[in-house]
């Protein structure tokens, strides 16, 4: 579960990114975060995985109060959430398999378990046959599949995706969305910031719209709502 209470965020340069947000996301929910560029979407998302700290207010993720955990404990917190980014964030010198396995190695899982589980998730995202390839040898869609595999390999309760289809063509984007739906069906909470109106309007889920650092709309089965 994710909960934000009176959250405000002002950057050192004086920019107010988030200006008083209260929101609750229940376990197993699928939530889109939409809004124009510079509205505060990214800050909203980054605060959920403790990349940014709020200036005031509290954020609870899986029962952990994020503003009060120490920097050195951040990695431990992140083991319980999966993250997917627009630019994939894969280790370029690691193969697809190694990239996914790395997330299990850091929590010191048994090698046999790692091997079994990595192949399982690579199969789930449909990229098992390219396990030995480097990210540079994969297409954008394939790289994003590897990133998704990595985000779910440790069975997190929450997956946070920041514009996961931003760099992909429409067809590939639909394939990626199918994977996300599949993950959500298994009970994982999914928070996804996006600019993709087609996806939001076709796969109807809860929509949180952010403008000027505030939630301006929160609908159960909403629309994208912005004209492009």
């Amino acid at each position, binding site marked *: 579960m994710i909960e934000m209470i009176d959250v405000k965020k002002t950057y050192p340069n004086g920019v107010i990114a988030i200006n008083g947000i209260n929101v609750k996301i229940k376990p197993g929910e699928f939530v889109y975060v939409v809004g124009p560029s510079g509205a505060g979407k990214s800050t909203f998302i980054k605060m959920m*995985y403790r990349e940014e700290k709020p200036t005031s207010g509290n954020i609870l993720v899986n029962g952990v109060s994020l503003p009060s955990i120490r*920097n*050195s404990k*951040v*990695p*431990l917190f*992140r*083991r319980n959430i999966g*993250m997917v980014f627009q630019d994939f*964030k*894969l*280790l*370029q*010198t690691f193969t697809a398999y190694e990239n996914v396995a*790395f*997330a299990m*190695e*850091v*929590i*010191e899982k048994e*090698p046999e378990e790692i091997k079994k589980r990595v192949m399982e998730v690579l199969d789930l995202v449909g990229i098992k046959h390219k396990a030995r390839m480097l990210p540079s040898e994969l297409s954008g869609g394939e790289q994003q599949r590897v990133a998704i595999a*990595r985000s779910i390999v*440790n069975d997190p309760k929450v997956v946070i995706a920041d514009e996961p289809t931003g760099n992909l063509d429409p067809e590939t984007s639909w394939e990626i969305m199918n994977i996300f739906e599949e993950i959500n069906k298994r009970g994982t909470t999914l928070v996804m910031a996006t600019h993709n109106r087609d996806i939001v309007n076709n796969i109807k889920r809860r929509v949180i719209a952010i403008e000027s650092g505030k939630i301006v709309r929160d609908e159960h089965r909403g629309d994208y709502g912005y004209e492009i």
Partner: protein
Amino acid sequence: MKFRTLLRHFRESFKNIGRNGWMTFASVSAVTVTLTLVGVFLVLMMNLNHIAGNVEKDVEVRAHIDNAANDDDIKAIGKQITEINGIESVIFSPKDEELTNLIDDLGDNGEAFKPFEQDNPLRDVYVIKTKSPQDVIKVAKKIEGMEYIQSVKYGQGYVEKLFSFVNIARNIGIVLIVGLLFTAMFLISNTIKITIVARRKEIEIMRLVGATNTFIRWPFFLEGLWLGVLGSIIPIGLIAVLYYNLYKYAAPQITFKFIDFLPANPFIYQVSAILIVIGAVIGIWGSLMSVRKFLKV
């Protein structure tokens, strides 16, 4: 940490050396160049120090005893001298022995002194060595004040100049070595920093998937160690070969009595050990300092 994880860090550190081929080359080259310089200076300074030590060791105090002193007086003086702080040895040299030594030292010219054997004009002497050569002057002053001491000689004037020269040489050497080490540290850690800045994304991703700082640091720590050790191989080889040949072929040509180089056998190993340790420490330090920046500790 599990042993398996430690093995993983070792494996990873070796892989990284290969994965970052050119960066490894740059870092190792920086270590090689600076350690060669440090090594050459180290060899010079340690030998200079050794020679200076030899020269200092030859410094001794000679207390000449008045002929008026009888055997008991002489013994009493000997006892008094022994009681002075910082004395290493006191040797009594009777005047007959002094004359024999003089005649021997002068070789053929010594013949001229033979007639004196009947009526020896020299005096009994106490030859005193101090634990620290620098104490010679102080000890000499004390002995001068004793009864039946006719004169005290320790190479007045010459000894003071020698000491100040040796001191200056030592200090310059230390400053040079320390300066060089600092230069080496900054040069190497900067090179390593560049290689790690290029990998900041890698560190960021590791943090994203939940790697602790310690987990991220380990491979970098080991990598720094390998870079330092790899970089010290050429300087060690170079210095070992050069010094060995210098010691074997050039040193015997120098015939000044007090110029005596450190024997190649333990010395080359000592210098090698020092260089490898410096290389390792600098490599680790440079690597960890650079990673620190990206760990937000």
